[in-house]
């Protein structure tokens, strides 16, 4: 911790459950959840793109809802259950494979944000139609313009999830 932080005070120890693991961390009041997840905990799949709540690249799932971690202060997240994109790899979620199979990424920088938004959609609606997918993802920005491929990848993941039941 820097001297400045010690002078300012206001830092707080919080506990969060991220990807089924407990984390205890001292956070400063101005740290965003994205900074904590990406910079401090090293879960670098949660990306910084607009840093402004405009693009969705930093999306994580908190208490079942997709949220923008760049617009969320970490200090407010004590006791919360959070899922980041890395958990999809751990749990072999079909979205990872269907995204790769359907080329639903180009540079890939915004992709984790889309995937997490899609995961939250599938969690609450395992069988979405095209319109529901577009409704869910319309707030995410992909500068490469991969949008049509996401719909295909999510529909395919939905089929796989349904088949697995």
């Amino acid at each position: 911790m820097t001297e400045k932080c010690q002078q300012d005070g206001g830092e707080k120890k919080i506990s969060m459950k991220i990807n089924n693991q407990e984390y205890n961390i001292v956070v400063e009041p101005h740290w965003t959840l994205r900074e904590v997840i990406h910079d401090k905990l090293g879960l670098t799949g949660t990306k910084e793109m607009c840093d402004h709540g405009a693009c969705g690249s930093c999306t994580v799932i908190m208490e079942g809802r997709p949220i923008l971690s760049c617009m969320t202060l970490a200090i407010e997240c004590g006791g919360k259950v959070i899922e980041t994109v890395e958990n999809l790899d751990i749990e072999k979620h079909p979205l990872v494979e269907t995204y790769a199979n359907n080329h639903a990424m180009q540079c890939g920088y915004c992709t984790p944000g889309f995937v997490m938004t899609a995961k939250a959609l599938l969690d609450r609606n395992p069988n979405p139609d095209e319109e529901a997918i577009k409704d869910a993802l319309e707030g995410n920005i992909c500068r490469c313009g991969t949008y049509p491929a996401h719909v295909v990848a999510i529909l395919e993941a939905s089929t796989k999830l349904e088949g697995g039941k």
Partner: protein
Amino acid sequence: MNKKLGIMEIEPLVRDRYIQEEFSIIGKRGIARMCGKEKASGRAEYTRDVKLPGMLYCRILSSPYAHARIKSINTEKAEALPGVRAVLRYDDPELQGKELFGLETKFNAGHLATDGQAFYHGKEELAVTLEQWKQGAGRILDGVAWWEGHPVGAAVAADTPELAEEALTLIEVEWEELPLVLNPLDALKPGAPLAAPEINSKNNIIRKLKIEHGDVEKGFKEADKVIKFDARRRPYTVAEAEPISDVILWRGDNVEIWAHQQQAYDGKMLFALKMGLPLNKIKLHVPYQGSQFGGGGNPMMHHTHGVHMISGILSKRLGRPIKTFYDRRDTFYNLSQDADCHTSFKVGFNNDGTITAVKIDNICAKMGQYGIDHFEENTRIPNLALNYLEAQINVAPAYWFRCEQNHNALCLSLVFEHVAAELGMDPTIVALKNDGVEGKDMEYLSKFKKEHGFPDRDSLRECIELGKKAIDWDNKWHKPGTKVLPNGKLHGIGFTWTHEWDDTRGVACAGVLMHCDGTVDILSQKSDDGLNAMTTHCQIVAEEMGLKLEDVNFRMFEEVGFQMMTPDGSCNLAVDAYVTRNAARKAKQKLLEYATTPIKLIDIEYPPAFPNNYPDDLDVKDSIVFLKSDPSKNVPVAEVVKRATLNQGGTRAPLFTWSWHRQGRYGTEKGRHRMCRQAYFAEVEVDPGTGGVEVKKIVNVNDVGKAISPETCEGQQYGGDYMGTGRALAEEVIYDPKTGVRLNANLLDYKVWTMRDIDTTVNLLVETGMGYGAYGLNGIGECIATVVPGVIGAAIYNAIGEWVDDHPMTPDKVLKAISKAKAKRGGLR
């Protein structure tokens, strides 16, 4: 004895004369992206994610004024802030003599401009000397700011990003504000303020150029009709996904760089040149790259070239890794934007749609584009003239952003659309009437194709026929401003065309290394910009060597002495595919030699896998070597290659080949005609009440020559549609006219197209094999976003019956055009 010096000839017409008919992996659908799982699961590492032990964070001061000079600077308070480890000031002795190459404020001079080679060498007239041009960007952290946000004055390295940020606020600068100019037309007026007097103290002219083919005056006289019109294309910007950063670690005599750059090796070369380091002391890591589209990743701009030197000097001084990083606003300020262009056209044509003469007067801001190139390269129009003037202004740096043909493509679209409209003709007919090359007709081009061993196919006709069918053109095309839909909106449909991007020239090299288990690594540094180069090159090597795709890997992230051109699919695959293909062919030959050649070790002779055969008797499929005459006799590749190491150790790679390829030279060859074409169709609905334009459907038809990965090509098609329609309808960098302060340097106010902004895209590939790349391929990545604004303009015209011709065609401009149409015709129906 006299030895005659040899000359290494570069054959501009190198291409595959033999196009393979059948492939097992190349061109196959259903191949997943090899980088896909890493990217989808957040495991892909980008430069922004790199964190090294002991790493310090560096921020650079930026100018609050569009044109200003630092009178004095006081960094004492910043230096005294606990946690600040160094402040690098613009007057630091180590920065002296470290001028940037003059590209960020001027224009590009080729892929790597260390030799000052101009892109269109011999074609243009520089208004500044070569020396001024090379020095033109000033020093790194200069004391002069030429645009608001210009990185100037000082850089701070601190323990945390926040501390570095805070330290910047403690730097006290006394500025001298200078007069500014923001518009190229204003910049060229007599008495205009000098935008960058350090480069040119007489006026604001950067380049002037005149091009003439034939005799335009004669062409206008011969025409049945002559029209004049004006157009403007306002600047749009990269708005790239990953904000700029780099990491440099200086250890002893060696340096390691983590680079967010497209041409990262060129960046290393510039760094070596400026820091006086030999290239073999610099280790380059190039992680995945958040989209850059050319404008973001150029190694010669401050945000890459300058940032490297700041990180390097600080790392050397402090003995710790330095990450210099830009935030979103900095990234907007310093990444290039396309040039503001003001263009006037005069066009002569006959009643049958034959264009007789085109004259273009084009005034652009720095790093503009001529506007005439596509008329030269893919029309039979005999009389062409261009007057080009490029002006220095006080806005953010300019560099080509997907791509340098933006204005060339739009000018072609506009001329063809206006001619068709004046004649009331189907624009696809006007295109076919004037298709050709360098003033010559299709008969000439057909002869050229036959003489040079290309298939003689009429690419544009094929593209148009496919596209018309896909959009139902014959039923949907109508007279302008005549179709009102039941929902009250105005229906419009448009078409445009140009040549496909088949002109890539440059150098690439790659190695193919087979491990003793039979798996292969392609060795060559290549920046991954999302164009799926990893899978594409693995497909090529697997195909050529007869290996399973999963047995091939592309180590693109480390620089091990081989470098490809970057990006890929964009157009550089036309060069790069030759090196992987040729290296793979050599490797296969070597493998078959191993399979048939005994190895003698002193007095023991080890038999090969096929002791009684020659290499020509064998072939490889699915990673198994087999006897062609009797495929039942077969040995796995792994076994063949393992024998070559005599089963010793198991880690020594026994098989390595490499290849180098030089494809022509930038822009200078004569007679290297473009043969592949692309066609676009778009359908829009315009709201007459609001001027809002909804894009209902875009049909892309691209003659890619040969698609190695069809899904990758399609990704560029629909991806380019989103960027292209965004450019056509919304994307614009807006400056405060009084202060030059950029007003929309964030992703909320700068409008990037999202999922709902296009209803449908239809993506069709034509494969004529008429590209200059390996397998007859050419590029696709750059052209769609470049050409699509033209087709959207055509569709809007068809909807409302009036030209907007001022891009982006925002609702306010569309509404004005609708009013104009109403005034002319007393209604829209």
